[in-house]
Structure formats: structure tokens, C-alpha cells
């Protein structure tokens, strides 16, 4: 793992109040117009998905004819801080699970409804609604030793060269963050805004979709949504961003 990033994470966790944190959200690399769009709930297109997610939250569905709210009640209470501590360990499968995977689990096992598609509108809206309940809260990865192997796998993938162009994520996002790839400013690849509205997508999308974008740019075979590798990368990035504030639903160029 990149030594600088490692140091930054350690400092960021140990001395949040004193240390000069070199970490910057993708937000800080955006122009003032895009920043204003994110900050204003009326202008932020991601808020439409949050509203859609709220409706889904309250709608009974599946064979169980239960809504999310029937079990979880008021999301502003029950879902507060939840998105800030995923991926987490799933006790049943003893493997790491991301927030989207947890929502799929409730939909299938507890509502007895069909599994929502990864990157489909239903799952993105529910994820945005759940994520919104942690907005402005610090990313707080679980202190769970069982996640160590997953994070280590993610760290290894982050610095592995991949694709015909032979790039690693770290070469751009650690070594060259702040530089320009053609016209595009290179951000530090923090996962703190997802799911988010990307102007280039003209839609809401997940962190794992963003990974796939970068990987096809590298001319690499992307990690499938919900795959062990994608969840490992996500777990590594969340730890690397520990203490940074969640912005869900963010806006990016």
C-alpha cells in the first residue's frame, strides 16, 4: 500500500482535530457550479432518487407485504450512520457485505420479494435514501478484525497494475491526484458521496460503477458489481477515508 495514504489514514484516525489532513473530497476538485448544485437540495438531481427511495421505503411489497418501515420504522433514526460503516461482516455468510448487498438481503429474505438488480433504479434509490440518513457524518468503518483480510485484498488491488495500459489505481489517485489527465482533474478516489449523480452518466450511480468506469479506461476487465473484488476495494477505500464526511447523494462531473 502507498505509504503516504497509510500515514494519512493513521493520522486522520488518531488526531482528527489537530493533524493537517491532506485528504480532499472529490467535491473539492469540482468547479463552483457543480459544488452549488450538490449543496442545494432543490438543484441536486440525486435528491429525486432519495425521494423515490423514501416512497419505496414506505411501500409494502413481496409475499410478506411488509415495507422497510414496518420493521425499521423512522429511517432518520434507524438508518442514521448505517451507510458510514459499510461494507461490514455478514454474520451468516462470514464474508464482507456492502450496503447494497444488505438491502438486497432484506428485500429477498424479509420481504420475500424478487432480488433488485444491482445498478437498477430501485436499489439505487433505496441506497440513496439510506445513505442520505448519514449525510455529514464521518465515515466510521467497523472495528472488526474479521474485515482485515478483505481490506488487505482491496489495498492489493488498488496498487496492482491492470489492463492494457498497465495502470494501478494508486498511480493516478495517490501519485498524481491534483494533476490533470487531459482535461480531467484527478481526485483522490474517496468513496464518500455514493450513490451519486454523475453529470456524465446523467443518472445516479454506485461506487462500483465508478470503479468500472476507471477500469474500462485502463482497458481492464472490470470487477463485476457485488463481486468479492469490488467489495474489497470499497472496504479499503472506506477505511482510507475514515473520518471524512459522507455527502450522499453527491454530484460529480
Amino acid at each position, binding site marked *: 500500500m502507498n505509504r503516504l495514504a497509510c500515514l494519512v489514514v493513521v493520522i486522520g484516525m488518531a488526531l482528527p482535530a489537530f493533524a493537517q489532513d491532506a485528504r480532499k473530497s472529490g467535491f473539492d476538485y469540482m468547479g463552483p457550479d457543480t459544488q452549488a448544485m450538490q449543496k442545494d437540495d432543490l438543484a441536486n438531481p440525486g435528491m429525486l432518487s432519495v425521494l423515490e427511495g423514501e416512497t419505496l421505503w414506505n411501500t409494502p411489497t413481496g409475499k410478506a407485504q411488509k415495507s422497510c418501515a414496518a420493521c425499521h420504522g423512522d429511517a432518520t433514526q434507524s438508518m442514521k450512520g448505517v451507510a458510514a460503516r459499510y461494507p461490514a461482516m455478514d454474520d451468516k455468510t462470514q464474508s464482507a457485505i456492502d450496503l447494497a448487498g444488505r438491502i438486497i438481503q432484506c428485500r429477498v429474505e424479509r420481504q420475500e420479494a424478487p432480488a433488485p438488480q444491482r445498478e437498477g433504479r430501485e436499489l439505487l434509490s433505496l441506497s440513496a435514501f439510506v445513505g442520505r440518513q448519514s449525510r455529514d457524518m464521518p465515515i466510521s468503518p467497523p472495528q472488526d478484525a474479521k474485515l482485515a483480510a478483505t481490506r488487505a485484498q482491496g489495498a492489493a488491488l488498488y496498487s496492482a497494475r491492470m*489492463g492494457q495500459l*498497465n495502470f494501478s489505481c494508486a*498511480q493516478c489517485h495517490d501519485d498524481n491526484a491534483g494533476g490533470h489527465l487531459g482535461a480531467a482533474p484527478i481526485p483522490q478516489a474517496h468513496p464518500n458521496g455514493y450513490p451519486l449523480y454523475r453529470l456524465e452518466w446523467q443518472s445516479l450511480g454506485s461506487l462500483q460503477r465508478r470503479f468500472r468506469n476507471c477500469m474500462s479506461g485502463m482497458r481492464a476487465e472490470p470487477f463485476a458489481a457485488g463481486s468479492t473484488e469490488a467489495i474489497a476495494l470499497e472496504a479499503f477505500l472506506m477505511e482510507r477515508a475514515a473520518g471524512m464526511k459522507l455527502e450522499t447523494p453527491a454530484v460529480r462531473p
Partner: protein
Amino acid sequence: MWRLLGLLAVLVSFDASAQTLVPYRIENGAITQSLTGVKGDAAKGRAIVVERQKGLCLLCHSGPFPEERFQGDLAPSLAGTGSRMSEGEIRLRMVDSTKVNEKTIMPPYYRSEGLERVAANYKAKTLLNAQEIEDVIAFLVSLKDDTQK
């Protein structure tokens, strides 16, 4: 580093299913022999360098291309390359820059093996073919003036 490269004479081998690569020899930090024996065409080389989907150079480099907006700033300007290094040194950097700097971000333009998770469309293919490499080299050799940016 340079002495080490000098000792290193690499002959590229390949399996039959992969694209056939022209063998080359690295000596004293350079590949002095043309990959094709056909003189490169500098005008074609320039076109490859500025073409974003093909050369990709301007994603990272800038250079004397006043018509090109949005040149990258991750690498030195290409202006004056021909006065800073020999043709053979440029050829080595084009073929596989990792042979000069193991940690470089510059992609290997004439290598198709030892790469991980390459997308199906690009599997066993080099970024440029041998003649395209020679065309780019001919163009870079012609860049003698490093005052132009």
C-alpha cells in the same frame, strides 16, 4: 540503473496465439535497431501522438501542439525530445517505458504479455504496431526545439 540496462539484452518471445511481436534488443539503455527497417513517417507519427484514443500521449504529456486543448500535466513536455535523447533511447521508452523506470505510469506501447486482467477487446494486442512505433519515433526525433511548448 543504466549499467544494469546495458547488461540486459532482452529478446521478446511470444506464443503463437498472440500478436506476433518483432524481436528487439536493449543495449546501453536503448534499442538502436528499427523494429521494421522501414523509415518512420513523422507526419503520421504526429497524428498518432495527438489522437486521444490511439496515442493517448496528451492525456499525460503536453507538447508543441497549439491546436490541441486540454493537454495533460502528469509528464514532461514532449517539446525538444529529439535534442534530449537519441533515437534508440526514445525507441526503448516507446516500446516499454517500464524498462527505464519500473514504476512509470507511461504505458508500454509495444508489449502484450505480462499484463493483468486485460479487457477482452485488447487481449494479446499491443497499443501500437511496430510501424506506428517507428512513425512516432520519427516525429519525436524531429522535435529539437524545447522552447516551444
